[in-house]
């Protein structure tokens, strides 16, 4: 056991660190690093398409490198985004009930976005392979 800082009363009342800050901090930085590499590549390659017609875009998303990249970048974006929005909510929403509801809603919305995005990419790339 590590040394306990603070008084017994303080611990019972739940004062002090929540002990989840380090994880939040490192995931936010880790996802940021991944996005620095992945996003310029994917946005750059999308902007180099001759047009944004259905066929061009399907061909682009369905290409194996792009598909792998998108399947990585969409969940990582969602994770990074969720962590960022979480901090903003924690800083500016002070009503406990509203705060909890907002945090849960934001988390659920990001999970839905990540899953929907990956399924869409998989449907395109697996569909166009056959």
């Amino acid at each position, binding site marked *: 056991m590590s040394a306990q800082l603070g008084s017994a009363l303080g611990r019972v009342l739940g004062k002090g660190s929540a002990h989840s800050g380090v994880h939040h901090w490192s995931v936010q930085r880790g996802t940021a690093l991944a996005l620095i590499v992945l996003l310029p590549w994917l946005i750059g390659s999308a902007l180099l398409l001759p047009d*944004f017609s259905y066929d061009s875009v399907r061909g682009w998303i369905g290409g194996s490198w792009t598909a792998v990249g998108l399947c990585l970048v969409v969940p990582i974006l969602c994770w990074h985004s969720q962590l960022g929005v979480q901090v903003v909510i924690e800083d500016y929403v002070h009503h406990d009930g509203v705060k909890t509801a907002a945090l849960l809603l934001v988390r659920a919305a990001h999970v839905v976005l990540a899953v929907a*995005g990956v399924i869409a990419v998989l449907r395109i790339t697996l569909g166009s392979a056959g």
Partner: protein
Amino acid sequence: MTRRPLSPHLSIYRFMYTMSLSILHRITGLALSCGLILLVAWLVAASRGAESYEHFRQWAQGSLQLQLLLALWLLALLFHLANGIRHLLWDADIGFERPQARRSAKLVVAFVAVAGTALLWFVFFGGRS
């Protein structure tokens, strides 16, 4: 829920221009989070067939407001990217002295101005549809 100290006590600081970058980092982050919805909607539309995609495309390209939003979104992305790298370097204890932080703030603004102009020019006047 317990009450833990939180960061932005903006009112007690004297304003410095570097602060506006910090605030902008949050604002652009939130804007990009909203843009994420459109990005996923674009992927989903493409996955649901030609008709659904054309529908989405006409909606997105037909409205001036959305085109403006897309331009702002790209600028927000450039800013958040450049300023985010600045934050990551600070985390690695690089450039965290005040004069350096002020210089890198100007560098970020200059980067967004130059790269933003080039990118928007390419996207909107690059001769694509």
